């Protein structure tokens, strides 16, 4: 989908004439080496992606591991069950709300950071701080969650111990063990983890802004904030829109590893999202393969629709879009 524009239309360059099969044979003969190179990658794609699709039929069965593919067909029965399932709605609600909150809170953060970094002049400071700020992106969710618990446990966590010792609070704040606190902590840590990495792309876009625009603005007497508003922000606008569209496409996405690592029993009300649902109902103690597969399918379909809608919206706004 993305590829269309850059493809150009070079297909006919070498083959102006001849029938379709004739052209195909000629192409195969001329480029067999290139096609041969594609065999292994295509085998991967077919095996690990296309061969999976037929298994989606499980969503229309009542699958039991011991019976395998001989399990009973139930048609839309599984979906009926899913849409009556309170857990599903809880997971759906949480996934949606978290993604919206994430877009509102997390999406602008790297832009603001990039704008700040862009204003820095001390080169060494800039380089070192960037190195440090990119680091969290490379830490696994398990490590981040483990460290977060080390810091935020109500009784033994560093932050609570420090605050209690200093006399600011009488008892520990349940950063990760009370559901509302958890939401804020979780989203904040997410921002913290991605802010540096997310800023790279905006910084690159800023570097692409024509310096003469700044000079002109300065000559016109524009101060720092005016330059920021009238030169920098417009300069990175296409990047922002593009990333926003891509983000909207994942409105029902929910990363399993992170949620799972941060989860605990006190916060299931909010932590319980679709990826957790799919895992727990499917491979977890519930062992209901069909229900899990049905929800997975639902998630994918919604994701697909969201991508197409965002793309259309972007085009209406006069941007490039994805497709």
């Amino acid at each position, binding site marked *: 989908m993305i590829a269309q524009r850059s493809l150009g239309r070079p297909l006919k360059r070498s083959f102006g004439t001849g029938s379709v099969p004739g052209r195909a044979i000629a192409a195969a003969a001329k480029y067999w080496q290139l096609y041969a190179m594609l065999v292994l990658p295509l085998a991967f794609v077919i095996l690990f992606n296309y061969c999976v699709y037929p298994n989606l039929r499980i969503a229309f069965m009542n699958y*039991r*591991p*011991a*019976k*395998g593919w001989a399990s009973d067909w139930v048609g839309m029965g599984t979906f009926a069950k899913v849409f009556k399932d*309170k*857990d599903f709605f809880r997971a759906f609600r949480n996934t949606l709300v978290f993604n919206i909150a994430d877009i509102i809170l997390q999406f602008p953060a790297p832009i603001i950071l990039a704008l700040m970094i862009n204003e820095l002049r001390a080169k060494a400071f800039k380089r070192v701080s960037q190195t440090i700020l990119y680091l969290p992106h490379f830490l696994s969710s398990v490590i981040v969650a483990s460290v977060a*618990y080390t810091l935020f*446990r*109500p*009784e*033994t966590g560093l932050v609570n111990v420090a605050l209690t010792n200093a006399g600011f609070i009488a*008892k*520990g704040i349940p950063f990760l*063990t009370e559901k509302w606190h958890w939401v804020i902590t979780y989203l904040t840590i997410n921002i913290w983890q991605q802010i540096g990495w997310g800023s790279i792309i905006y910084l690159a876009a800023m570097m692409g802004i024509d310096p003469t625009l700044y000079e002109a603005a300065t000559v016109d007497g524009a101060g720092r904030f005016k330059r920021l508003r009238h030169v920098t922000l417009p300069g990175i606008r296409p990047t922002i829109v593009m990333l926003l569209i891509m983000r909207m496409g994942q409105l029902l996405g929910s990363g399993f590893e992170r949620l799972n690592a941060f989860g*605990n*029993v*006190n916060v*299931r*009300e909010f932590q319980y999202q679709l990826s957790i649902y799919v895992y*727990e*109902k499917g*491979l*977890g*103690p*519930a*062992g*209901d393969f069909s229900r899990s597969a049905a929800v997975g399918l639902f998630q994918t379909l919604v994701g697909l629709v969201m991508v197409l809608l965002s793309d259309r919206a972007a085009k209406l706004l006069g941007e490039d879009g994805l497709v």
Partner: protein
Amino acid sequence: MKKIVSVILAVMMTLSLASFAGAESASPKYNPLDYGMEPFAAPVTIKIPVFDRARDDVPDVSSNYYTNWVNENFGKNLNVTVEFVPITRTDTMGAYNLLLASGDWPTVFMEYDWPKVSQWAADGALADIDVDAFIATAPTWTEKAGDKAQFDMFQMQGAQKVLPALRPYWDTNYTYITFYRKDWYEQAGIELPTTYEEYLAALQKFMELGFTNGKPILPKKAFNENFQVYAESEWPRNEEEWAMYSDVSVAPLPARGAYYLLKKQNLEYSLGLYSKEFELDSEGDGSATQAITDFINGEAYTYGNYLGADMPDLTAFYQNNPDAKLGVIYNNTVYDPWVDAWGARTVPQGRATNPAGMFVGFSSKASDDELKAAWLYMEWLAQPDVLFYIQNGVEGETYNLNADGLPEVVGGYQGDYWMGYGNNKDYWCIVVEVRTVGTIEQTIASIAPKGLPQDFTQELIDNYYILKAYANDGLLYVDPFFSVNIDSVSEYAGDLKAKFVEYATALVKCDPEEFDALYEQYVQEYKEAGYQAIMDERLEAYKNGLSTVLPDIASGRAPYEPSDITKVVETKYTIGQ
């Protein structure tokens, strides 16, 4: 040349050893041919599940000295390969589901929990067992486990799907012991409490005196779905409620006993006796809970665990607290003054363990030869010599004989004959659940913790007899066994498990004022999430006569009349946990 010499030497050595062994009639026999078993014509492979408990202090469960020993002795002589398939202990069903899904079925299926085997049977994973053929092939195993009548009791879904392995002394649960800090009473100068109020007052006093260094005094563990409310239930038991609620795989949140138990824990939590983060304190792989750490550091009041000659936690505890004195909380599972305070019941009652050890079933996909080989494997392991070896290992290495000629475990051994978890328990559990030596007194003596400043043997034996007396009075009993699969349990248990943990934690941590309202709300949600269906289905099965019933003695006798021994015990030791 050298080779030939060494071969000759080896042969001579073997011969001389063999003749020596022949002369020595008492020498142990591990060769299945000695027991009249016949080798298979074609090679057979059987897959035996073994629990993987994710521990670092045991050898690899599927390949170690003893698994090799099994193959060297049993396997080679019978043309059988025995593969051990690791099963994650904390997610048994998940592990079996993975095996089932991947087509890599084990030959043997075994589980302690009836609902799980019942589900396997309902899914068609288990073969119908030809009992007569089994008994003919494995008479020793059968004799150990009981007899055909005993097997009949565990029929389900119209057939013999599983065989019950032996669990000696099952009615008392005597292997689980709770210890408490006896020395704190002496230091604080207070008597052992006789009521719940006194007990709470004592705990608060200990905390005030700084015995716990400001830590919460009671080591509360995170919840799981195994939530027993026998002790908190009314007496005499309402048999219908018992049939509806009693199931290890689903917690009975709506039961009245659950209400009492959670309310009690809520009070204890609000008094600051539990850690504020107890729900985070689950046992990860290879690491103990904070609660255990606190106890080891001398900062917690109780410590409960299964008995063993080598109890590293207790060893560590005495290292840190050389002057401390522990006591055994008698009949901890059955007597709790708290419940009296709520008027819930007036007798000590509790849950016995299962009347059988492992429920052993066989894959419906196994060939005749594989089935036979699995049966022979069980028969071979049940032979006294073989069982002794796999339970005790090698004399002078993993055990020594004591004055009575009974084996005593060498603690902390990790040499060439390093044994698996609990003296190789996960291998011999297919025959018998508990390692016994001689009488019950001798058995308890052998598993009483050794090498500590205190010797608990007598107290542990007392504890057994107290429990035994309760059992005789019908106060210790088990969950109903249903002869049909309760489909709603298979369907909802997984969902309900997570919900229960969530709700129970919230209930314990909530403001005591809000407890009742919150409890009502959660019960409602819990029922809607599937528990109502489970209650209905279980009740119906019970009414249709498809389940076991309470022991007559329990339902027929009210109010409870304690027998002499329990009277003595109750006046002598009354201490809650």
